[in-house]
C-alpha cells in the first residue's frame, strides 16, 4: 500500500455557530496530486486551514504522515509545506528574510540549492532583496510557493497558488510539482477553480459542496474524462453539483 501523507477523517469545523465543515473524509498518498474543487464558500479554504493547523478542529482527525495534527502538531508540521495566501506575507520583510525565517522555523541547517534554482526558474531572484509589500500579486505567489517548498516537505498544500502567475511561471511550477510527485517525494493538495489543472495534472479530484466531499474522481476516472475531451470535466462537475 502506498504511504499516505494526509488522512482526514470525520472533520468538522465551524465559525461561531456556522458549521463550515460537516464531516470531511479524504486521503492523499505520496506521489498523488489531489485537486479540491467547489464553488465559493463551501469550505475549501477552511479545510486547508484545518489541515495546516491555522484553525482549530471541532471534531475529527487529521494525520500528516503518521503524526496527528491534533496531538502531535510539531511533528506533523515538520512534514508540511504551505503556500500562504499572498496577502498574508509579511510586507515589511524582504523575500530573502521570509525564506530565511521560514527555514529557521523549520529547524533546517541549510536551504538547499534546488530551491534557489526554482527561484531562478520562476524569475524571483531579482526581487529577493525587496520588501514583499512592493511585490506584484504574481511575485508574492512565487514567494509563497517557494516557502511551501522549503525543506522538501512530504505534503504540499496550495490554495489557488496559480492565481496571478504568468503562464511561463505557472508551467514551470506545474512541471516542478509533477517531477517531485513522480519521484514520490511528496503529495500535493491544491484548492483550485482551474479545470485545466485537473485535466492535465491531477491524479485525484474532489468536489466539495456544503462542507463535505460530495464526489471524488480517482485517477482512472480522470483519465476517462480526459479521453472524452471537450467538456468532459466541466460536464462531470456540473452533474455532480446538480445532485
Amino acid at each position, binding site marked *: 500500500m502506498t504511504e499516505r501523507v494526509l488522512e482526514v477523517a470525520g472533520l468538522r469545523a465551524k465559525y461561531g455557530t456556522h458549521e463550515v465543515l460537516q464531516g470531511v473524509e479524504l486521503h492523499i498518498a505520496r506521489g498523488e496530486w489531489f485537486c479540491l474543487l467547489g464553488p465559493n464558500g463551501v469550505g475549501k479554504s477552511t479545510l486547508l486551514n484545518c489541515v*495546516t*493547523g*491555522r484553525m482549530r478542529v471541532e471534531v475529527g482527525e487529521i494525520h500528516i504522515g503518521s503524526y496527528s495534527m491534533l496531538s502531535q*502538531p*510539531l*511533528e506533523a*508540521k*515538520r512534514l*508540511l509545506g*504551505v503556500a*500562504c495566501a499572498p496577502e*498574508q*506575507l*509579511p*510586507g*515589511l*520583510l*524582504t523575500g*530573502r*528574510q*521570509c*525564506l*530565511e*525565517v*521560514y*527555514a*529557521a*522555523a*523549520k*529547524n*533546517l*541547517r*541549510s*536551504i538547499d540549492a534546488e*530551491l*534557489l534554482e526554482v*527561484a531562478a526558474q520562476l524569475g524571483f*531572484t531579482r526581487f*529577493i*532583496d525587496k*520588501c*514583499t*509589500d*512592493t511585490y506584484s500579486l504574481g511575485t508574492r505567489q512565487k514567494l509563497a510557493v517557494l516557502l511551501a517548498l522549503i525543506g522538501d516537505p512530504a505534503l504540499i*498544500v496550495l490554495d489557488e497558488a496559480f492565481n496571478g502567475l504568468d503562464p511561463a511561471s505557472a508551467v514551470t511550477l506545474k512541471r516542478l510539482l509533477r517531477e517531485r510527485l513522480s519521484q514520490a517525494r511528496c503529495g500535493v493538495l491544491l484548492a483550485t477553480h482551474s479545470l485545466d489543472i485537473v485535466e492535465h495534472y491531477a491524479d485525484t479530484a474532489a468536489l466539495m459542496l456544503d462542507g463535505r466531499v460530495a464526489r471524488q474522481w480517482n485517477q482512472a476516472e480522470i483519465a476517462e474524462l480526459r479521453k472524452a475531451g471537450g467538456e468532459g470535466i466541466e460536464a462531470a462537475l456540473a452533474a455532480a453539483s446538480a445532485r
Partner: protein
Amino acid sequence: MAVIGIVASIVGVAHWSSDAGLSALQEYWLLVLVVAGIHSVTSVSRSRRHAVAAWSESWLATAPLSAAAVRVNRAIDCFALLFLQYLIVCVLLAIAALAGGEFGTILRPVAALTAGVLVGSAVGWWLPESRHREQREASRYAVHAAAGNTALLQPSDRGLSHWPVARAMSMGRPENSRLLFVCVALFAVQSGASAVQGIAVLLVWTIAGYLVSLLSAGITVAKEAAHWLRPTPVSFVGFAWPLARRALLHQAIGIVIVAAAMSGSDAAWLEAVSVVVLWMGLVLAVYAFASSTSYRT
C-alpha cells in the same frame, strides 16, 4: 476608554491652573492659530485623499449618483472629525474658563483656533491631489537589509528580529508623527529655554515616541508572525526570543538615553533609574504576554 479619557480631560481641565494657562494661550494666540492651521491642512488633505481613494474602489463608484451628492459625502468624510476635535477643544476651554470665573479670557484663543481651522480646512481641501496620488508602501520607511548573495541563503531568524523595528519605523513615518512634534512645539519647549534644552526635549520626545511605537509594534507583529508561522514547527522559544531580541535592545538603549536626559535636566538620578526599571519591566511583560497569547502549536 474614550469616556474615561473625556472625563479625565474634563476633570484635569477643571483643576488646571486656568489663570496661567489661559493667559499663556491669550499671549500665544498666533501660535494657536498656526498650529490649528497646520493640523487642519494636513488632516483635511489626508482625509480627502483617503476619501478619493476609497471612492475609486467603492462598489458605488459606477452608480449613477450626482456629482453634488458625491461631493457632499466627501466633505462630510473630510470635515466631520476635524469639526468634532474643534468642538472638544472649545468645550474644554470653556470648562477651564468657567472654573477660573473669567469667560472672556478664552475669546482670543477660540477666535485664533476658529480662524486656524477655517483657513487650514480651506487650504487642505483645495490642495492639489496629484502629489499625493502615489500610495507609499510601509516598507519605504523601514531600514532595509543590505542586498546579499542569493547563493548564500541560510536559515536565520534575523528577519523576525527585524520585523518589530521595521513596523515601528513605518508607524513613525512623518505623516503619522507630525502631531507629536506639534504637541512638543506647543507645550514642551517653554519660553526662555535655550536651544540646547529645546533640542534635548525634542530628542527625548522623539525617542519616547519611537519606544511607544516599538512596544505597540511588538504586539501587532507577534500576532501577524504567529499567524504566518503557524503551519511551521517553530517552538515557543524559537518564536518569542527572536521577535523580542532586537526590540528589547532598542528599548534598553532608548530608555537609558531618555533617563540620562532626564537626570541631566531637573530629575534626580534615582528617579531616572526607576523610570528605566519600570519601563523595561513593562516592556518585558507586554512582549511576553503578546508572544504567549499569539503563539499556538
